[in-house]
């Protein structure tokens, strides 16, 4: 990992450790104080270039630091703001803050008198109720567009994911001034943006899965039954070993996602990652609850805050089935004459560099 990214991971860990240990912190609640601290530390600009106020970090170096978030029961809009800011930058729009929103549910996104007319129900928008501007993406006949607008509070219907993070519905019938609507690169169409959003969720899933293993590991060493710690029982040891395998697979898959993230995302590799992270999330959560017994099933125990986030994040921006459908369809279509060369393509060395051709 890049040095700066290591420092950022430490900063993230320190801020969230301090915050979740402070007296006014309520686990499982939206924590805007933590969000403000993370914003001050520069996390919302983390994906931007230095020209745009960021740090020129490679996503493959930076994104894995987001796994730290999975360790803490603090709910913050930081990653979705970070992603929104990055998208705004790619669309050539200047803004101080914007939370990413999918334009899936819109039935209207077109040029009209006075600007772009957006209408319909935008659903499962992260944190819309906070009154932040949202960066809403939609493919149109004029290309893939990104509009930044601040929805009126009255138009927000509150909803949330299983982990308690706001996922609101916004009813739009608004005209957005042309200077707040930008064009995204062709590769950042709705599909590409969704893939990148999924790549970010992979980091959170891998982090939370590792943390749930750590909690379970501690618990089986502390808890005594039949006169010895649970960890002494072979059946328990093997369940922990199985969880460890899933955590390792989720970590590798999240690495794949981090490398595939970008302006021209590798959608198949992100599919690989989201499928594997999602499957690991379910298995790790299931085993963790089994090993924690009844205590882990209670409101007072910390475990459920993390397992609920695993259950939520694995389905956001596409669950295993939807990504497997995309990946499987493409792989099968290309493999009528064999699978291996589809999975591991080999080309003769490229003699002419791509830049030279473009020039």
């Amino acid at each position, binding site marked *: 990992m890049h040095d700066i990214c290591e420092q950022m991971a430490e900063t993230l860990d320190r801020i969230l450790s301090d915050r979740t240990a402070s007296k006014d912190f309520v686990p499982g609640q939206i924590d805007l104080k933590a969000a403000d601290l993370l914003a001050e530390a520069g996390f919302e600009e983390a994906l931007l270039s230095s020209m745009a106020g960021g740090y020129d970090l490679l996503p493959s170096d930076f994104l894995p630091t987001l796994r730290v978030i999975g360790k803490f029961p603090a709910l913050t809009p930081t990653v979705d703001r970070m992603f929104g800011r990055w998208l705004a930058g790619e669309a050539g729009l200047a803004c101080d803050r914007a939370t990413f929103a999918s334009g899936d549910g819109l039935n209207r996104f077109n040029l009209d008198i006075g600007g772009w007319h957006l209408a319909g129900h935008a659903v499962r928008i992260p944190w819309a109720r906070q009154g932040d501007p949202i960066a809403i993406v939609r493919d149109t006949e004029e290309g893939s567009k990104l509009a930044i607008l601040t929805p009126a509070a009255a138009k927000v219907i509150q909803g949330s994911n299983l982990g308690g993070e706001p996922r609101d519905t916004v009813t739009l019938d608004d005209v957005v001034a042309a200077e707040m609507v930008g064009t995204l690169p062709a590769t950042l169409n709705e599909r590409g943006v969704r893939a990148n959003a999924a790549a970010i969720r992979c980091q959170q899933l891998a982090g939370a899965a590792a943390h749930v*293993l750590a909690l379970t590991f501690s618990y089986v060493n502390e808890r005594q039954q039949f006169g010895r710690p649970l960890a002494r029982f072979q059946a328990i040891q093997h369940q922990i070993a199985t969880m460890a*395998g899933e955590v390792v*697979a989720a970590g590798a898959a999240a690495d794949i996602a981090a490398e595939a993230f970008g302006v021209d995302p590798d959608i198949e590799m992100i*599919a690989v990652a989201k499928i594997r992270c999602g499957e690991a999330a379910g298995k790790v959560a299931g085993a963790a609850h089994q090993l924690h017994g009844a205590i882990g099933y209670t409101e007072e125990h910390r475990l459920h805050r993390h397992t609920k986030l695993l259950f939520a994040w694995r389905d956001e921006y596409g669950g295993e089935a939807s990504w497997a459908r995309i990946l499987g369809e493409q792989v099968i279509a290309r493999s009528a004459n064999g699978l291996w060369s589809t999975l591991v393509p080999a080309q003769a060395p490229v003699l002419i560099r791509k830049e030279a051709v473009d020039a």
Partner: protein
Amino acid sequence: MLDVLDFAPPPRLDAQDLRLEVRDFLAQEIADRLPRERAESWNGSDPEFSRKLGARGWIGMTWPKRYGGHERSALDRYVIMEELLAAGAPVGAHWIADRQSGPLLLKAGSEQQRQDILPRIASGECYFCIGMSEPDSGSDLAAVRTRAVQENGGFRVNGTKLWTTNAHRAHYMILFCRTDGGSEARHDGTSQFLLDLATPGVTVRPIIDMTGAHHFNEVVLEDVFLSDDKLIGKRGDGWEQVMGELAFERSGPERFLSSFELLDRLVRILARHPSDRASVAIGRIISHITTLRRLSQSVAGMLDRGENPSLQASIVKDLGATIEQEIPEIARLLVDVEPEQDAAEEFAAVMAVTLLSAPAFSLRGGTREILRGIIARGLGLR
């Protein structure tokens, strides 16, 4: 404690030229090999093919040139291994020698043993079998009863090895046995020997496996005399050496490519009969295999750097065996076929071979239970 679960990013595999070269080679050499034969994966054995690979420089690739090796990187070797496995090439004759016996001799063998053996392995002419399991010592390897008793100028060995793959085709066995103490000594007092299978007192008897094939053997050792120079490494270091060998055995691409022929044949059929259900099922398998490939390459990088990734290798093997055993079951849900080894139709035969091979995936090279024990111990639970 859980830091051990951090897998370093895999080194980049840049060997595009090499990959194309081996694909061309395979397209010529094994064009006629039937899918049902390819499905045998690294159980398929063909000494002539092994010699051709040796002539290409694709055995003992990473070893020093003075021992007949080619001083290529571990990653070049990884490319060759996965290309051979993905194609279902008949690599079984030399596979064990290249994967673990050669590396063991390179690490622990005497200069004479290296000079005598390694160049012959690298040329694809000298094959090995693994002398670990016994009738009463399977997963509990430290319970070996085969004993080498020191006498004038060497050791007198008695005992029986079982499940010995390829003993009937191999030239040598790496014999793991007890030299000192009783079974209560456990890991102490064990040693490894270089056993020429033509030595008087060695009897090899076939054991037919449930596919009907002859890969396993029983190897009986009766008053076999081994001179001192047949000892590998130091007397009493057997356990440590054998664990190092197993790290090589557990982490390679054979841990996610054993059932690849079935997957390949399945996808070809589904390409002609696409369905939503098939896409979802295949997408999931591809996700698992792609992730495993990355993990396996990461372990190859650790081995290349001289680290000891026995915990990580165990995780890769456990994950690999789990998905590989799922593949035939998933295939059954997608394509209606009655498996039959001698079927006229290739898919039915490939399905039969893979179904009947699959139970071994989580047995050979360390059972699932042993691997999970190693993982738990690595995490500090035992």
